């Protein structure tokens, strides 16, 4: 399936069936989800599940191939450098994705709510449409959507989650140091600690959501506050989950003896990703919980 071509300048894989197959799965996954959302529950769910299965099979197959190529040292410095640039710009694109939602939060707080209460050139918005509305934060808007609720506070679960992610950033760095210096036992312990902290974060986030729904009256439908809170933390939590699963995979690979002092791009890519979710959390803690 894959081989070197001609001179040994750069590894060019040949004839990959995975990308086409995974696209079929992805298409089915999204098509099924759309059907599910649009009222065709049964057939939508069936197509969704079929798509998910195809995708998972393809992901396993594609990554097995890449791991095999990596472990047989098919990739050298030049290939490694391509992967690094690829990962850097992938993470950059993720940053931009979160940027859209942070932008929505800032715009709503700084402009929309004051505008609805008559600021700038919007006097008649307040007078005619929403008389008496006063901008404040947290807010569920002039329509009081979702009923009365309490906002999030920076203490409690949020503070604990911040600590969890910060400690996990330290542990993954220690694991990286251990890998570079050949202390494999340190890698095994600290990497395990890292994904354990990551999964703990996800569980306590779920706990926080339940708390918000049951005790605070805060739901996804609680106007702009509920919207930005759940969507921002939800997408972040999804990324933490993905990152923690990836760390788990890397840990299994370490247990099987993969990677060495110089050849461990897979490890570093996930470590970068982990730092990325960490930094996003910093923004969330600051702008969603605190300010």
């Amino acid at each position, binding site marked *: 399936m894959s081989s070197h071509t001609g001179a040994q300048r750069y590894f060019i894989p040949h004839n990959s069936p995975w990308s086409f197959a995974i696209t079929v799965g992805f298409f089915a996954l999204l098509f099924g989800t759309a059907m599910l959302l649009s009222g065709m529950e049964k057939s939508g769910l069936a197509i969704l599940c079929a798509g998910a299965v195809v995708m998972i099979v393809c992901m396993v197959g594609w990554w097995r191939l890449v791991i095999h190529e990596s472990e047989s040292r098919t990739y050298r410095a030049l290939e490694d450098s391509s992967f690094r640039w690829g990962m850097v710009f992938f993470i950059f694109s993720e940053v931009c994705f979160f940027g*859209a939602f942070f932008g929505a939060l800032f715009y709503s707080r700084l402009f929309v709510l004051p505008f609805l209460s008559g600021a700038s050139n919007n006097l008649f918005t307040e007078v005619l449409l929403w008389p008496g509305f006063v901008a404040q934060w947290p807010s569920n808007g002039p329509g009081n959507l979702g009923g009365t609720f309490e906002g999030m506070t920076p203490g409690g679960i949020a503070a604990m989650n911040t600590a969890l992610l910060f400690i996990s950033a330290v542990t993954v760095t220690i694991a990286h140091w251990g890998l570079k210096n050949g202390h494999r036992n340190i890698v095994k312990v600290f990497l395990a600690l890292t994904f354990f902290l990551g999964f703990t974060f996800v569980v306590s986030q779920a706990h926080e959501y339940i708390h918000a729904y049951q005790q605070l009256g805060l739901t996804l439908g609680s106007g702009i506050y509920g919207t930005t809170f759940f969507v921002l933390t939800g997408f972040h939590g999804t990324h933490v989950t993905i990152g923690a699963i990836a760390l788990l995979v890397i840990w299994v690979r370490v247990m099987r003896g993969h990677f060495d002092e110089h050849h461990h791009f897979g490890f570093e890519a996930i470590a970068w990703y982990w730092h990325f979710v960490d930094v996003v959390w910093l923004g969330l803690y600051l702008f969603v919980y605190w300010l």
Partner: protein
Amino acid sequence: MSTEATTVHGHGPAPGIMRWITTTNHKDIGTLYLTFSFIMLFVGGAMAMVIRSELAQPGLQIVNPDFFNQMMTLHGLVMIFGVLMPALVGFANWLVPMQVGAPDMALPRLNNWSFWLLVAGMSMLLSTLLMPGGAMEMGWTMYAPQSLQTPFSFAFSIFSIHLMGISSILGSINIIATILNLRAPGMKLLKMPLFCWSWFVTAFLLIVIMPVLAGGVTMLLFDRFFGTSFFDAAGGGSPVLFQHVFWFFGHPEVYVMILPAFGIISEIIPTFSRKPIFGYTAMVYALACISFISFAVWAHHMFTSGMPTAANLFFMYASMLIAVPTGIKIFNWIATMWRGSLTFETPMLFATGFIVTFTIGGFTGVMMALVPADFQYHNSYFIVAHFHYVLAGGTLMALFGGIYYWLPKWTGHMYLERLGKTHFWLTIISLNVLFFPQHFLGLAGMPRRVPDYALQFTDFNLISSIGAFVFGASQLLFLYNVVRTVHRGKQATDRVWEGAHGLEWTVPSPAPYHTFQEAPDVK
């Protein structure tokens, strides 16, 4: 592509259909992108014909308003995401590795995946036409809250945007990695052909804006199905938020479509002027400058949305600023031609035609950057004329020129020169007959996105429609010329054009399946 050339390095393409499905070769993938975009050109073109047929006369005679709106929406989305962007990515796939002396794209499997994601996305988008209630009717901008009222097909349309967005991001990552990592020794960044530079800048733009679009349409999805309030004023959100998010994507997006076209023009003009490009470094900085400023102008699409005056002023000045680097580019193309030893083969005809039509579109852009003037032009046919001058008169012309320019290198055959020239003259004349009267319609007050109009607009609409039919029919000549050239034609030399410079002209025509397995010498 001929078989003897492909076997030189041992690894030829796989036989049969699997060659195209599983290929990781940048030339195969480039061909796939270009073929796909060619098919979509006729799909999107057919939709344009429906629109112009309906608008040829006042009154409703051919289609109902709902279907008209669906055609208008899909025409925009297909032309942008299915024709212009894929065609430019096809050029990038074919040319970037050859121009920087790389053996292939940096991430070949990902490259294949980008293409198939695009096909999946476009298939999902077109499938919405067949669904109950039809496709989205809100125009390609998908403004909330009207787009939220799309019937059954709403979620499918959103997911199709996600698919095409992922495709663009992955393709861009690949182009950046190739340019940063796989340049031949000696190919310094400031020695790269301008086409590579234009795509380098464009890929960066795409990586910033595509996730933002994905975020924006995700917000639409959540508002529709999960009860969020991003765009609902009752909950403290605002429909104007969607406009901000969309145009933060949408404005750089128009540069995504024009910058690689600039790159193509910057390759063609020096060749047929037999002079190096005038002011190479200035051209590179102008590209960077345009892309940088493009992030600070988005709200000039929203002057009538009710922003504070300070915001209107800021976006007005920032938008006019973009005319400076763009002017530098146009000046340098003309300066390259100045006292050159000019010949006007088909690619050069399209390149010079591009300068004229694109500049007209650029000028109307500066007119609309002025806030008080824009209050008059907003949502009129003037804007339709403007962006068709830059996209059809700009990008599409550059694409035609680029195809004629590199087709001999890709296929090993010369195209029919006389037919190419006929195609050019028919295209440029019908293009102006099609779009120029729309300026007058807009200034006289005809709104865009309507299937019916007041009687005083009849004459110019009829002229415009006649132009559209001629324009559409002319592209059949192009189709014939390209398909014929793929199969036969006079054997092309390696250099193809007397004045051509660059690594891609040092390899045989057609270019072998694998090029630059060993790094070329770059002086």
